[in-house]
């Protein structure tokens, strides 16, 4: 009959006070840096009441900004989906000279400040830029137009889909593709029936991230936009203009719509994670 002198504690478990303190610190940090700003956006947006909020978000230029943001995303995201898929496919499934250079290039937009990417576009396509005179003769305008906004957004959001897919495709190897070919599939059938279904959740995840960034991008877009109200102002740019004009309620109202779009993306992403957690976890080893 031995009496336990001390209560057994699992080696990986800390004492109650330590656990509570750590949890509180974590929650406080998240609340302070993530939750408070989000609440503040909505609180400020509704400060002058629902009617003022509605007026601000249905104002002509605000609607134009929303429409433009959606348009830019609707062009940039599909483009980067296709090119990201192509890039990931070639990097993951083939060996070729210059592969590491290509991988570095894919990552470039992540490592360059978006403002600089915007400036590079001005340097290339602007009136005084390298290609400016040529484009001028052809009657094509890039800078201060929607075309410029789309180009800048495509550049900044290029890595999302490719980055998501490369590790996933590398891990999967080419065995299933070889099996498909030996069973008589054409290259096209192999891609649609085997390669694509195998990466579908990773792809969707990449598209969501790409979309979130495309709608929220500020720096690069700001440089090439020219801030023409109702024409080349996307939502983030419109928010800035309103804010600089001391029109805080309207600025926050538009910002809250942008935040709402981001929240929808997040909810979709969480729903995907919840439903297909294992598959996505396998895709997410970077």
């Amino acid at each position, binding site marked *: 009959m031995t009496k336990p002198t001390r209560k057994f504690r699992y080696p990986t478990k800390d004492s109650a006070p330590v656990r509570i303190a750590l949890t509180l610190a974590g929650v406080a940090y998240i609340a302070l840096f993530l939750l408070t700003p989000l609440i503040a956006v909505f609180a400020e947006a509704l400060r002058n009441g629902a009617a003022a909020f509605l007026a601000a978000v249905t104002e002509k230029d605000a609607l134009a900004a929303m429409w433009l943001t959606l348009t830019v995303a609707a062009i940039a995201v599909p483009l980067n989906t296709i090119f990201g898929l192509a890039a990931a496919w070639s990097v993951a499934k083939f060996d070729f000279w210059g592969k590491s250079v290509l991988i570095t290039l894919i990552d470039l937009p992540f490592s360059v400040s978006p403002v600089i990417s915007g400036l590079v576009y001005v340097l290339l396509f602007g009136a005084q830029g390298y290609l400016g005179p040529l484009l001028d003769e052809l009657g094509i305008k890039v800078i201060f137009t929607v075309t410029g906004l789309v180009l800048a957004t495509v550049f900044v959001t290029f890595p999302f889909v490719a980055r998501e897919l490369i590790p996933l495709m590398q891990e999967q190897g080419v*065995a*299933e593709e*070889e*099996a*498909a*070919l*030996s*069973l*008589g*599939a*054409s290259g096209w*059938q192999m891609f649609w*029936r*085997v390669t694509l*279904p*195998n990466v*579908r959740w990773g792809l969707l995840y990449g598209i969501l991230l790409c979309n979130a960034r495309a709608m929220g991008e500020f720096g690069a877009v700001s440089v090439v936009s020219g801030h023409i109200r109702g024409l080349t102002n996307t939502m983030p740019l419109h928010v800035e203009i309103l804010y600089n004009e001391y029109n805080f309620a309207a600025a926050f109202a538009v910002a809250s719509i942008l935040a709402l779009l981001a929240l929808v993306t997040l909810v979709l992403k969480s729903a995907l994670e919840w439903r297909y957690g294992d598959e996505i976890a396998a895709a997410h080893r970077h």
Partner: protein
Amino acid sequence: MALKIERITKRFGTVSAVREVSLTVEKGEFMALLGPSGSGKTTLLRVVGGLELPEEGTLSFDGHDLTHVPARERRAGFVFQHYALFKHMTVAQNIAFGLDVRPMGKRLARREVNQRVEALLNRMQLEGLGKRYPSQLSGGQRQRVALARALAIEPLMLLLDEPFGALDAKVRKDLRQWLRALHDETKLTTIMVTHDQEEALALADRVAVMNEGRIEQVGRPRELIEKPASAFVREFLGTDGEGI
């Protein structure tokens, strides 16, 4: 006649994986390619299946030149070492794949495809597993699905890459007898790659022993054991005849 491999060479960079290998596999024969890892046996099998293009040499089946025929047109039933089953498809969809991807004019009616899949499931002792996904199967069952999938396209030859490599000893022995019985029934020209001499000697009609990209000796199991052509063959087989 059947499959004729003539002076095939396959290099990867500066390394020759297969060097001027010639081998004839008779119609309906069960041939084993036996050798240690790195001996070039899998590369040779992949050349036959059209998954690698040889730098030199020719390949023919029944007198038809196969050397430059793409994999998808070779009708070689390839069974991969780790099965390479399509994870996102059910067992039935896996087996039907080769029939589903046929060009428009040659495609079978849905009902006919289903009948064929059902027949293969029965023959492979996979009754009732058609709706499962590969991840819900045991290793031995996956192996049989891979075989069924390869047989569904009515292949001209069966190419097996270490078919029992990933299975435990007990399942290996069972599947071995079962595979031999299947071969005797279908009479398909078969090439099996293995590094297990016991397996090769017990299963195959003839065995080609490979070493460093070359074939050291080809012969019936008993011949190899009684008259090994080189020290390597003698050592690799262990000449006390325990394999038979």
